[in-house]
């Protein structure tokens, strides 16, 4: 059944068939019995990129394109390890990175993590940081 971003929200109750954990478990499989049987991993209990993209569609259909864009970047970041996430955050803080370092980060996001939206976002930051004196020296 095709996804209807207006009628199929909340996904968890309306369209559980569309929701999976990263390891492929369905929502109905996230149970105490599964926990007892050792079938659940903490690292597996999070949204997938696909789920976040569906939520992005829901947001867009509700007229919230900024939230949808945010969820688009979030979908990309599901593939990025925790420590890299924290590294990028630190790099985006004021006076932490040179233009070259931000550009390298953007390239890495695009190349290693297939995260073009986030990469573009970082490039936009780089341009504004350069204008506003928020970069660190090269």
């Amino acid at each position, binding site marked *: 059944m095709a996804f209807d971003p207006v009628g199929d929200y909340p996904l968890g109750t309306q369209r559980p068939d569309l929701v999976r954990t990263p390891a492929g478990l369905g929502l109905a499989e996230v149970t105490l019995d599964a926990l007892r049987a050792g079938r659940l991993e903490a690292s597996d209990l999070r949204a997938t990129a696909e789920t976040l993209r569906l939520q992005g569609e829901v947001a867009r259909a509700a007229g919230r394109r*900024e939230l949808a864009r945010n969820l688009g970047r979030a979908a990309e970041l599901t593939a990025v390890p925790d420590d890299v996430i924290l590294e990028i955050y630190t790099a985006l803080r004021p006076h932490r990175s040179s233009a070259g370092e931000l550009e390298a980060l953007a390239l890495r996001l695009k190349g290693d993590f297939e995260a073009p939206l986030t990469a573009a976002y970082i490039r936009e930051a780089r341009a504004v940081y350069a204008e506003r004196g928020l970069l660190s020296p090269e």
Partner: protein
Amino acid sequence: MSEQRRSRRFVEREQRELRQELLITPHPDVGLVAMNGPNDPDPALEIREDRVVLLDGRSEDQFDALDHFIARYGLDLDVAAEAMAIDETELAHRLVDVDVPRDELVRLGRGLTPARLARVVALLDPVEMMFALKKMRARRAPANQAHVTNLKENPALLAADAAEAAARGFAEIETTVGVSRYAPLNAMAVLVGSQTGRPGVLTQCAIEERRSLQLAIQGITTYAETLSVYGTEPVFVDGDDTPWSKGFLASAYASRGIKVRFTSGGGSEALMGHADGCSMLYLESRCLCLARAAGSQGVQNGSISCVALVMSVPAGSREILAENLLAAWLDLEVASGNDAIASHSPTRRTAKLMGQFLPGTDFVTSGWSVMPRYDNMFGGGNYDADDIDEWLTIQRDWQIDGGIEPLSEEEVIRVRERAARAIQAVFAAFEFPAISDEEVEAATYALDSRDLPDRDRAADVAAADRVLAERISGLDVARELDQRDFTEVAEAILGMQRQRVSADYLQTSAIVAPSGEVSAAVNDPNRYAGPGTGYRLDGVRWQRLQHLPHELDLRTLEEAAEAPAKVVAEKHVASMGDRPDDVVIAVGPAFADGLQATIGGMAHRDVIEALMGGVREAGGEPRLVRIRRASDVAFIGHDGAALSGSGVAVGVQSKGTAVIHRADLQPLDNLELFGMAPSLTLDSYRAIGRNAAGYALGQRVGPVPTVMDNFARAKLIVHTTLLHARETAAITADAPAVELELL
């Protein structure tokens, strides 16, 4: 120069708690002006080739980082030309026009600049703002958020308080720490407690961003609202962030399935020394445009921790309400402050609160202190545990849902104990420093953390470090609870992990019902369009909120009445007295019959004996009569006087109100009236008897001294009404008075 003589009233007022606060004249140069500051830029927007080249007084080459961010991500250029062309007054009208739907205003708002948005809401008066907020709130049903902390960072007490908060209906619970290394344990205690009290409650721990994100990744928290943004670039940079770093963080949280809202609020820029000469509302408007541009689903706003600063300038409360309205107009979820202490004065605090309470917001407070203020570590507690009955009563008074439910003492004790036991089991499972049975009991029944034993803080902090080092997760907590007979709590915690998978609560204004069903602006949108539409507190929910545990059920009152020993006997229809010393004591229809005591608790027999004794002391001859045709004290007294040989009578109602009357006076006139029944003593009744005899015998009489208690009415008006209703019910129409004998 001699010292000027002071008015004692002015001196007295200076001692009131309100006067501990400083009120100041506006000082726009440092940002101490509420709205419409003289230095605020004129609204302006110029677009060239799909690019914003002029925004609110600055051309592109003068943009700061915030302008760039808003221009790039925060304006809908397809709507901008249309929206910016609409007259400000016309936009203000549409905000309060019940026939202009919310969706249309949201659409237009997307094309308005920060300066224009601020100007438009500033055109509304407070009631208009409240109406607009009611209409513009994103989610249909309002909710509330709780704060749970304690000075000892005692985990059993944190869990018990979180459980009570959840059971009382708070949709979100926020905790924080005194010592930052405690964060993992505090967050865990609040997770366990909240899910014990009511499944589905979202929880967070307010700490430094990296640590906060880490706890969320481990599934110990489910939301964050610490993403503070500011309205000027220097303050942003002083906060060690940029719009891009905050925006990235928002996406990072979302990528881990964590709900996020930003935080902003008027006065923060002035406090941090870089308001750039602009008004609080204009700078907040920039914050809100930025929050939406970053893709945040919502904000915590309405001055928040700077509330007392905003309220030091004229129109401060109105500015704060304008902030909340602006956020709602921008289609953001609003957690509307009322957490930090707004004033020393309870009157002023509550006057400010009404701006959010009556219209309702997504979270009426962004932190209602479930524990006494002593234990609030947010520097807050604008409303706290001591105020719970006030809050519930005000909800009941206005028929307004402020998001807090009444709960019986037994039920509160039950959930607190269960939660303290659950966290005790979790600590045992992970071999954290044990939580003793004594702590569980203290946490269940405590007033505050002073009732709890001290813990080994060094050992607790070491355990907290283990949570991070060993990556102990929400799932691990659920597993251990399941194995220790806390299956229902384990199931609820697992339910929250499931929410992270479906990520439904990332949508605007999302909260989670105990069933796991998410309710957000998407599936429960506010479509208020006039009376009878939108959210109304009625049906089952109204029944739930109106019945407070200490409410008196009148039916139980009726049942409690049992037949007492007889005090008087009716002899015969009362005759006209003929002796000059005859003083009639006229009692009401239910006196010493259906009713047995006055509102002041005086037994009717004692009252009769005091009155008759007083008459005799002054040389009169008392005669006891019951008036059956009237329950009003004036008529009881006057009817008695008409039967009295001396023409003087004492009339007394069952509730104790008394009058000395004379036959030649009009019924509603009198010699002396004693309306303050609750403060009358047996000595008073004796003195009333003496005075009545004095009038009868033509002596000089000084009025009986009475005490005035201005609160008696508020305290006793319900009792008065109930007693009087029974007196009135005992009336026999047209029946003559009867003479009574005291048994």
